[in-house]
């Protein structure tokens, strides 16, 4: 059933915990050691640590406090969702500075995970566009942090998974856009080498690039898929379309699907069909921003398709220095180890951001959706072993199964993060199930 006991991330692997919600989020943060937004991190980032009962959600504190229509600078409460941001600011000629894969995330969550999107190679992570934040820190005080005030705390909070304190509100900069619609090109690509070359090529002339790849393909098909690239459309391209795109209808998944629905076999069939439904030639057109940026948002609760057992997403980035060989080695391992992922996502990342523990680095990001079963932990461990060899890292907002010792090996920045955390939160008050598992809070 949809109502399992306890609390879960988007991957629906449940743990202990209960959510507190109030419009007065600032007051709530006095009483808890962790906050969350809309619960879209996949693993246990937003679940309370063992021994803690509650986590506060910012979801009801979603007001825009000020907006400058000249500069696009917004100040808003932490619970403002990307969905509402789009609906408010598209008509005013602005969009979020980064384009993540779902709009059901909050401002606070976007900062805490330092999210990136299809435009990472141009716009960097969300943190780059944040000017300041008001935070409740471990002492109980509310402090303003920015690049000039408590700059170490500011940098550690970008991608810091909520472990430095609660973000109460934040000031950030939107990007001006010619229209919210997206002019897109999609293309079928036959293998991983071609895919990486095409991504690189597309990045030169398009702000949005990403691809869906088939990770089950036989050797010569390995990493084949559909490449997408796009840019915000010029009003002259829109024809009879409305200036502001209408809200798309959303479908519901009524209950958790049986677990055979997503198996290696069904995934393989789906991936093959998906590849071949695209004509060999390039397709061009104007896309609705919701269907281009957030294709899965049209099915509400799509996570129920994985059934009661839940699923995890494994997302890692492989440094550019390891080239296509590194990516190919990784995809081979995924295929041979039996990781059956439907529609895996590939994206080239730009330079590393300011966040002390931010995920992206210059290289190739790969995201795999894996149904959870008895082997998931060892599967993730085997991916991590190769990732460490390749000098890559995982994305904390997706992780549920990585071991602390593997994380330490792949994360040379951990010491710097823990040092800042200890200076602001010496008693280790702020913690999550994930931080306890990975040793993100020091001892």
């Amino acid at each position, binding site marked *: 059933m949809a*109502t399992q006991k306890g609390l879960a991330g988007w991957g629906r692997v449940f743990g202990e915990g*209960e*959510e*507190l*919600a*109030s*419009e*007065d989020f600032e007051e709530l943060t006095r009483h808890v050691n962790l906050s969350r937004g809309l619960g879209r991190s996949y693993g246990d980032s937003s679940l309370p640590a063992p021994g803690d009962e509650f986590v506060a959600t910012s979801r*009801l504190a979603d*007001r*825009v*406090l*000020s*907006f400058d*229509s000249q500069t696009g600078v*917004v100040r808003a409460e932490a619970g403002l969702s990307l969905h509402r941001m789009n609906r*408010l*600011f598209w*008509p*005013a000629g602005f969009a979020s500075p980064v384009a993540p894969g779902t709009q059901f995330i909050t401002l606070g969550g976007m900062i805490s995970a330092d999210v990136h999107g299809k435009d990472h190679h141009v716009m960097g992570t969300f943190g780059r566009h944040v000017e300041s934040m008001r935070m409740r820190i471990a002492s109980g005080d509310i402090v303003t942090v920015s690049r000039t005030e408590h700059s170490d705390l500011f940098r550690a909070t970008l991608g810091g998974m909520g472990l430095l304190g609660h973000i109460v509100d934040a000031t950030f900069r939107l990007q001006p856009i010619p229209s919210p619609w997206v002019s897109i090109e999609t293309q079928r690509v036959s293998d991983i080498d071609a895919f990486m070359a095409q991504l690189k090529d597309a990045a030169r002339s398009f702000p949005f690039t990403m691809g869906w790849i088939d990770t089950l393909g036989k050797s010569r098909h390995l990493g084949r898929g559909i490449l997408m690239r796009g840019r915000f459309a010029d009003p002259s391209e829109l024809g009879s379309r409305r200036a502001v795109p209408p809200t798309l209808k959303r479908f519901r998944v009524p209950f958790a699907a049986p677990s055979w629905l997503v198996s290696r076999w069904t995934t393989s069939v789906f991936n093959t069909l998906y590849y071949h439904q695209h004509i060999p030639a390039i397709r061009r057109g104007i896309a609705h921003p919701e269907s281009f940026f957030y294709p899965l948002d049209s099915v509400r609760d799509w996570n129920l398709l994985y059934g009661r057992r839940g699923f995890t997403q494994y997302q890692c980035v492989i440094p550019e220095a390891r080239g296509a060989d590194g990516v190919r080695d990784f995809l081979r391992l995924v295929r041979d180890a039996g990781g059956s992922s439907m529609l895996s996502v590939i994206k080239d990342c730009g330079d590393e951001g300011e966040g002390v523990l931010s995920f992206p680095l210059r290289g190739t990001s790969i995201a795999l959706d894996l149904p959870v079963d008895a082997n998931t932990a060892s599967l993730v461990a085997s991916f991590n072993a190769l990732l460490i060899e390749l000098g890559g890292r995982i994305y904390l907002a997706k992780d549920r199964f990585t071991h602390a010792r593997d994380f330490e090996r792949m994360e040379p920045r951990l010491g710097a993060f823990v040092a800042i955390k200890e200076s602001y939160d010496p008693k280790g008050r702020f913690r999550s199930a994930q931080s306890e598992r990975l040793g993100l809070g020091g001892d």
Partner: protein
Amino acid sequence: MMKTLFLGATRGMGRALSRQMVERGDALHLLGRDIEEVAKTAADLSATRDRLVTFSRFDLDEPQKSGEAIEEGINKLGGLHRIVLTAGIFGTQESLETSPELAARVLQTNFVNTILFCESARVRILARGGGQLVVFSSVAGDRARKPVVIYGATKAGLSAYLEGLDARFKREGLDVTIVKPGFVRTGMTRGLKEPPFAADPEEAAAAILRGIDRRATVVYAPPIWRWVMAVVKRLPRAVLRRAAF
């Protein structure tokens, strides 16, 4: 343009409903107890719009100031078509049973003070030749049940008053709309066990806005609750004594 005086826009259902009103171009004047909170809500509602949403302070626990507050709203709006009241206090039956002070507050605010405000609103609306009074009651007022004995009683009393108001003043131009939300996921209902047909505030607000625009006398939100309550109202006492809801 619809000119609306709104008491209770800072939270929950009031927040969702006022956003949808502003989005389609209604003019709003907000009343609320905590002026800083009301100012933030006004800023949120008018963030991307040229026209400002105005506001002033009013505390439902000072009902004697209702008339003054309504007059100020009418001045700021430059007219009046509709007064919406979503404010009220909720307490779980458990907490109300153990704290007579809390019970007294809920009874006082939801029943006495709300009605005194409505009386003031009625006088101003009729003096202007007519208009609409929209008041949030609750499905809890339709039938007394275990989890809402005291809260439900305040809402039953309020619904009865509003029905009477409609009977007495409809012909003089007062359109009374009673809004009865079912279970809506807001700060008010957090931690409560979710029944079937629970709705998000946006979904409920859209249904409510359609209903009040139609000048319906009673609006259930989401609408399915009309039928749920039609059944609950007919349940024999023996069933209510055993039922958990």
